[in-house]
């Protein structure tokens, strides 16, 4: 009887799930309309953008790297897809989406190449490519916005509905999460990512080809950021070179860190990341309901990251159970 409960408490995700529940109940106590199915729908619609990119960033963090360039990759892919939609409306939707993901993957692969070939810290490299890709997207787009009437109707509709009522983008986001879970837990390469992040020195000794796997991780992160670019175009109905994706990397890193992915590599789950993303979504939706100004959003995100870091530090072994046990002792 006790064992399953203890196992649940020991999971790293326990902390975030408890936080999410407490937060929802607290907000619900003040504003009861927060705890309705309608709010859940709004939250679910708010998160696909972050969720898709968070899956990529999570893999990067598990491999003990960080990718700061995903906001610029998102913007670049969205602009490129938008230009295809605008200049070649006769092409099917899939072409634009495919191009966005391919471009995103290529930009991500470039990150991975520089990081692995020159053995440089990913934080500085991706800080550089953040700027590089943003500059390139301005040159590519001629600093022109993709206007709402250039975004194809069917794409916009994907953010609104689907045959089963749940908007397509929500389905896509959760499908990506499921695929990431399968990849990370059931494939050899997926397990190798954890091995690289846990101990980058030991991984090659065990025959893991660190360089190609690391490049693959950055490529996937880029491709998912590209997919997020399509979701951005669908959801907001425009793409602006100076706005789209700016600062997005920080929101995604916040979600991933809150979800219990360790900044020291090797630790992190899809479930935790999904919870982290939902938590950010819940905060985002709760603020206006509570009558709190939207200006608080980033400060709260930043504060939550810091709290998550403290929790990660104090609970490194044993999950919530460890904290409770230590608190009792």
């Amino acid at each position, binding site marked *: 009887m006790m064992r399953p409960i203890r196992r649940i408490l020991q999971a790293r995700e326990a902390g975030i799930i408890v936080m999410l529940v407490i937060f929802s109940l607290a907000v619900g106590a003040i504003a009861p309309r927060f705890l309705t199915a309608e709010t859940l729908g709004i939250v679910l619609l708010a998160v696909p953008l972050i969720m898709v990119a968070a899956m990529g960033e999570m893999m990067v963090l598990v491999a003990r790297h960080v990718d700061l360039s995903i906001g610029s990759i998102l913007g670049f892919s969205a602009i490129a897809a938008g230009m295809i939609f605008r200049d070649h409306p006769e092409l099917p939707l899939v072409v634009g989406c495919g191009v966005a993901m391919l471009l995103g993957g290529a930009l991500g692969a470039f990150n991975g190449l520089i990081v692995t070939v*020159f053995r440089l810290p990913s934080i500085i490299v991706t800080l550089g490519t953040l700027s590089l890709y*943003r500059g390139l997207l301005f040159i590519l787009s001629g600093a022109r916005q993709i206007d709402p009437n250039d975004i194809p109707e069917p794409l916009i509709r994907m953010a609104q509905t689907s045959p089963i009522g749940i908007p397509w983008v929500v389905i896509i986001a959760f499908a990506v999460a499921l695929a990431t879970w399968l990849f990370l837990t059931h494939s050899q390469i997926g397990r190798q990512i954890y091995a690289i992040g846990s101990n980058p020195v030991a991984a090659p000794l065990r025959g893991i080809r660190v360089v190609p796997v690391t490049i693959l991780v950055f490529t996937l992160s880029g491709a998912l950021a590209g997919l997020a670019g399509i979701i951005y175009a669908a959801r907001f109905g425009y793409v602006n070179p100076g706005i789209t994706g700016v600062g997005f990397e*920080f929101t995604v890193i916040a979600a991933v860190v809150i979800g219990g992915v360790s900044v020291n590599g090797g630790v992190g789950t899809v479930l935790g990341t999904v919870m982290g993303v939902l938590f950010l979504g819940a905060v985002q939706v709760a603020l206006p309901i509570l009558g709190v100004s939207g200006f608080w959003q980033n400060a709260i995100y930043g504060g939550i990251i810091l709290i998550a870091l403290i929790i990660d530090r104090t609970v490194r072994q044993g999950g919530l159970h460890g904290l409770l046990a230590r608190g009792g002792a």
Partner: protein
Amino acid sequence: MSAIGSPVAPAVAREAATARPRWQIILIRPETVTLLLLIVATIVASRLSPFFADLGFILESSTYYIELAIVALMATLVIISGEIDLSPAAQMALSACLFGTAHRAGLPMWLAMGVSLLSGLAMGALNGLFVTVLRLPSIIVTIGTLIFYRGLAQVLAGDKSIGSFPSWFVGIDYRMVGIVPVPVLIFVVASVGLGLFLGVTVIGRQIYQIGTSEIAAVHAGIRVRRIKMGLFLASGLVSSLAGLMATSRLGSVRYDLASGGELTMVLIVMLGGTYIFGGRGSILGTFLAAWLLVIIATGMTVANIAINAQLTVMGLLLIASIIATNAIYARSQR
């Protein structure tokens, strides 16, 4: 191979290598590369436009970048110690917004400036606590605090700008000493001061030792945590000072003051040949790199390249400079 049994053997086997010639030692220092680039950039720029032959013009245009250059000086010390602080630009914004809010609330100017500087210390202390007490990696800590500080600045200022400061406070970049604007003078003085601190004082040398090998430094009795805490505190203080200078130059504050400044700051430090993994680097390099950046950025502006397109060059420069610095150090290490 059998060195364990006979301690004399390695001493015989390893004859002292002949010292490299002095010119070679000087030539492979990254600062030399920065200096050469600076000279080349100046020559190219003055060929493209006669403006660049005019020292006054360069000094005048440098005031746009000088605040981040001052922050980069402090960041050099932090990076040499093996840590990194990505939050200075956000610290500039928050301390400046606090300053503006305090002034708007009717506090006297000196008190408002005191509030701003104190907030810088507090922000540095928070970074330092996370790194030295909780022992979390500074990369992720300062990403967290950069969002947090910038977010608080947004809470304070909203999307409006806070202005109407007294006229003696506004326009620091137009105050001249000879032909040198005051911010540039502050930068030069700070460079000399920090350069001496790093090069001559015991603590300065200990910073290098910490960055080279933290474990060895601990065993050598260096108060690693205290020094790192001091560096983060100083970084916060310098950032708030730079925030005040930016406020004076702009005449008003917004929450997005110095946004994207972390790139410029890191770029200056990396261009100056500071080793990203710690233990190597110099204030001289950062000082030269700041001028290199001023020449390049102003050159692009004069050549009518849009600010947004300039981002491409900045990003490429950052990647190129870190690759070059690493290659130089990898060669000189053996």
